[in-house]
C-alpha cells in the first residue's frame, strides 16, 4: 500500500477523496436513468396513493415517497424483476411510515382531517373519499396498511407479510378482523347496505 493511499487527505486533500469514490454507482445496485424512469412512472402513483391513504396526510406522503425512492436506489436490490422491486419499495415505505408513527408526533393522524387532501379533486375522487375516508380514519394504522395492500394493491398474504414484516400466518387473521371492522363502519355510514360502488 502506498503512502498516498494511506494518507489520502495529507497528500492530495479532497481531490483524492473524490477520486477514491466510484464515479458512477455499481451497475448491479443502481438502475440506469431510463430503467428507473420507467419503474418510477409505473410505481410512483400507487405508492403515493398507499402512503397518502394510510397516513391520511398528503404532505407526509410526498416526503415519504421521495425518501422511499432514495433509499430504494441506495440499497442493494434484493431480487430480480419489477414485481420484487415494487414489493421492496412498498416495504421501505411501510417501514418509513412505521418510523414516523413511532416518533413523538406534533399532531395525531386522527386529528388530521380528510379535507387536507387536494382541494381540486374531481367529484369521483370526493365520492371515494367520502365513502372510505371516515371509516379508514377510525382504523388503526396497521389495519389501514393491511387493508390497502390486500384490497387496493391486490397483494397476497405472503406478499403482505413480506412488505409489513409481520408473520405470514398472522396476516390472514389480522386482515379478517380489519375487514370485518371496516365493513361494519361502512355499513354504519351507509345503512342501506349493499355495494357502495
Amino acid at each position, binding site marked *: 500500500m502506498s503512502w498516498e493511499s494511506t494518507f489520502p487527505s495529507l497528500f492530495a486533500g479532497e481531490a483524492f477523496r473524490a477520486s477514491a469514490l466510484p464515479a458512477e454507482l455499481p451497475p448491479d445496485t443502481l438502475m440506469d436513468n431510463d430503467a428507473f424512469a420507467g419503474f418510477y412512472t409505473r410505481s410512483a402513483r400507487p405508492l403515493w396513493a398507499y402512503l397518502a391513504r394510510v397516513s391520511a396526510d398528503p404532505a407526509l406522503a410526498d416526503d415519504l415517497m*421521495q425518501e422511499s425512492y432514495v433509499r430504494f436506489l441506495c440499497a442493494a436490490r434484493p431480487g430480480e424483476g419489477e414485481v420484487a422491486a415494487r414489493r421492496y419499495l412498498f416495504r421501505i415505505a411501510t417501514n418509513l411510515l412505521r418510523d414516523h408513527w413511532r416518533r413523538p408526533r406534533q399532531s395525531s393522524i386522527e386529528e388530521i382531517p380528510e379535507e387536507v387532501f387536494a382541494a381540486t*379533486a374531481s367529484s369521483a375522487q370526493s365520492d371515494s373519499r367520502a365513502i372510505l375516508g371516515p371509516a379508514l380514519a377510525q382504523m388503526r394504522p396497521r389495519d389501514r396498511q393491511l387493508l390497502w395492500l390486500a384490497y387496493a394493491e391486490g397483494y397476497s398474504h405472503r406478499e403482505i407479510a413480506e412488505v409489513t414484516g409481520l408473520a405470514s400466518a398472522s396476516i390472514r387473521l389480522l386482515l379478517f378482523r380489519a375487514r370485518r371492522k371496516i365493513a361494519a363502519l*361502512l355499513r354504519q355510514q351507509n345503512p342501506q347496505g349493499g*355495494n357502495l360502488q
Partner: protein
Amino acid sequence: MTLLTCPREKEIAQLLALGQWPQAAPAELRAHLAACRSCADLVLVAPAFQSARASAIAAAPSLSPGLLLWRAKLRRRQAAIQRVSRPILGAHLFALCLCLAVAVAFAVTQATHSLNWLSWFDQLSQPTSINLRAFSPAALFDSPPSLLVLIPVLATLALLGGVAVYLASSERQ
C-alpha cells in the same frame, strides 16, 4: 373473533379483481352473498378500496425521477466519504492518545530534572567551586541519553501506531 372464511370468497375476489362483479356472477353466488357475512364484507370493502386507489392515483403529484436519482447518488457519495473518513479519524485519535502519553512522560522527566536543579540551588548556597564545563553545549550530550532517545522513539511509535490503526480499520471496512 373466530376466523370464518368462506370457500367461495376466492371466486368472488376473482370477479371483483376483474371488475365483473356482479354482472358476471351466477345468480346462486349472488344469493350466497345474502347468507354469508364474510363474502358480504368482501364485496363491500374491496370495491371501496379500489375506488379509493383510483382516486388517490389521479391526485398523486408527479416528480422528476432524475431528481431522485441525483439525490440517491449524492447520498451514496456522502456515505462513501464517511466510510473513507472513519479510519482516518481512528488514526487521529490513536495518535492523539500517544502524543498525550509522550507529553505526560516528558513532563515527568522534566519534573525530576527540576528537582535536581533545586538540589543544585541548595548546593549553590554553600561555598564550593563552580564547574564551568557543565554549562557548555557538549554537556547536554554527556548527560544520560534517556531523554534524547525517548522523545524520537515515542514520536516514531505514535506515527507508526497511527498508521497501523488506520490500516487495520481500513482493512476492516
